[in-house]
């Protein structure tokens, strides 16, 4: 369960003051397939960053499970992200010098998992995203869609509580988008994995079970389908 209460975020560089979030309250339950939507500059990425512990709120609390991450130190946040949150980024952000397999097992290495456990989970995850025959390829040898599927497998590798995906289909063609959404939807259905997207891609919005619309840093609507 993710519980965001009275969260505000203000950027102030001394000259310009921007209120990116203005008192956000939202709860996301386990197993949800939620899209946060809104126009550019609406605050959806800021909200996602705050939920993911990449940024801290100016005010308010972000409670994940039983931990209020708004009060964690920088190092505690890094550890928390490693063990509780999976990330999928818009531009894949795989480690270019590592193969698909090495990229997926990277987080498990940071978690000091045994080699046997890493091998087993990496194989399983790459199979789940349909890349079992691409394990030794490096990112530059794969298509954008394949790279994003590796990124999903990587996000799942650390056994997170939920996955945050920031515009995951923005750089993908229709076929790759459909394929990626199928995979994520299946993981959500079969393994009860929670997915939270920020997106303005209608194809993602159409598949979401809940759509939270943000504008000017405020929740405009919260639609459960």
């Amino acid at each position, binding site marked *: 369960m993710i519980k965001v209460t009275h969260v505000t975020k203000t950027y102030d560089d001394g000259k310009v003051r921007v209120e990116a979030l203005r008192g956000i309250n939202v709860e996301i339950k386990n197993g949800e397939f939620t899209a946060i939507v809104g126009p550019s500059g609406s605050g959806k990425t800021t909200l996602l960053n705050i939920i993911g512990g990449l940024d801290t709120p100016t005010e308010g609390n972000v409670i994940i499970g039983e931990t209020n991450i708004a009060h964690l130190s920088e190092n505690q946040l890094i550890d928390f992200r*490693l063990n509780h949150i999976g990330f999928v980024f818009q531009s894949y952000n795989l480690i*270019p010098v*590592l193969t698909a397999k090495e990229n997926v097992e990277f987080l498990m290495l940071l978690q000091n998992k045994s080699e046997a456990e890493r091998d087993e989970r990496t194989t399983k995850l790459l199979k789940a995203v349909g890349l079992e025959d691409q394990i030794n390829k490096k990112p530059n040898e794969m298509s954008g869609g394949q790279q994003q599927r590796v990124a999903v497998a990587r996000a799942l590798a650390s056994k997170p509580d939920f996955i945050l995906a920031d515009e995951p289909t923005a750089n993908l063609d229709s076929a790759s988008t459909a394929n990626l959404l199928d995979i994520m939807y299946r993981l959500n259905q079969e393994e009860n994995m929670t997915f939270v997207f920020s997106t303005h891609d209608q194809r993602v919005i159409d598949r979401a079970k809940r759509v939270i619309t943000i504008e000017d840093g405020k929740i405009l609507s919260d639609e459960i389908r």
Partner: protein
Amino acid sequence: MIVKIAFKNIWRNKLRSWVVITAIALGIFGGLAVISTATGLSKMRQNNAIRTYVSHLQLHDSAYLKYGRLDDTINQQADIITYLEKSKKVKGISPRLKVESFIQSAGGTSGVILNGIDPEKERQVTDLAEQCIAGNFLERYKQKPPIIISQKLATKLNARVKTTIQCSFTNNMGVPITGIFKVVDIFSTSNSMYDELNAFVRLEDLQNLTSIQGSHEIAVVLHEEKEVEQFREELISKFPNQHIASWRGIAPDLGYADKMMDLVMTLFLIIIMLALAFGIVNTMLMAVLERKKELGMLISVGMNKRKVFWMIIWESIFLALIAGPLGIFSTYLAVNFFGRVGIDLSFAAQGLRSIGLESTLFPILDDKYYVIISILVIITAILSCIYPALKALKLNPAETLRTA
């Protein structure tokens, strides 16, 4: 995994990495080459001086050094020679009688120091016999006493082998004496100034002419150069009335050159390490700035900053670990090769001779410098990438993902 990623990271931009590696290797090679050449020159000058005229140790009567009087000969000569001949450390000794003289031939005149020597004993302490062109080191002569002069002096006097020359000096009573000698050989050392000022005759001939028995100087050469100072102390305690000096005391410029060389080498090492440090700082800073987004991603997904820091340190260590051995090994090969065959500097032979050097230079590099350089390269690599690594630690993951 961190080490593996670090190693792979340095090959992302192969050209840049190789340029840096080559620059570091060349820097190390250049620095060590200069050090080895300078050491070779210094050692050559030192060895030449020791082999030609200084020897490891020289013993004099203290009064002789103070007043330069002919009759201030070494007063314990027999005891000293017996002691030296019994010592296992001593390779050779040569007593010398030295007289300032005016030398004259039909072709010219000059002032020289006449050195009365025992040819057999002198062979044990100097290589003067090997510098004689006719191979007659005062050993073969007929009626007139033999003399050896240098090529430079021979040119000045317009003399050659078999030329009769006259030496004028005063004995210990101040009575003018003239000796007639026949040139039996001509020598040429690597020190033209020494050549011009010295001529050699047999010890007994000079003793007969001056009516002085004994000698003014005993030159000593040891088997091991490193034992010189210790043996000097031993002699001083045994013969406290004698003035006993090591080559460092006799020719302090040689000792200064040694110390100067240490200073120069330290400076060169600092320059090499600074060049290495700037190369690494520049490369690693570029590598960090180019990968801001990726480093931000690594921190985002849970790689703690300690690991990010070490990943960058390892990248730098790998650059140094590749470049260091390349530079050191190429230096080792070059120093070994030229240490055997020498570097031909005959185009500057005359100039080199005037400062006591030969025209073939043999570079020397003490093994310790390979070890020191290896350790310094690693330390410098680590130190110089701390700044880029700290720069990486300051990255804000959310910001780098948003803006990069």
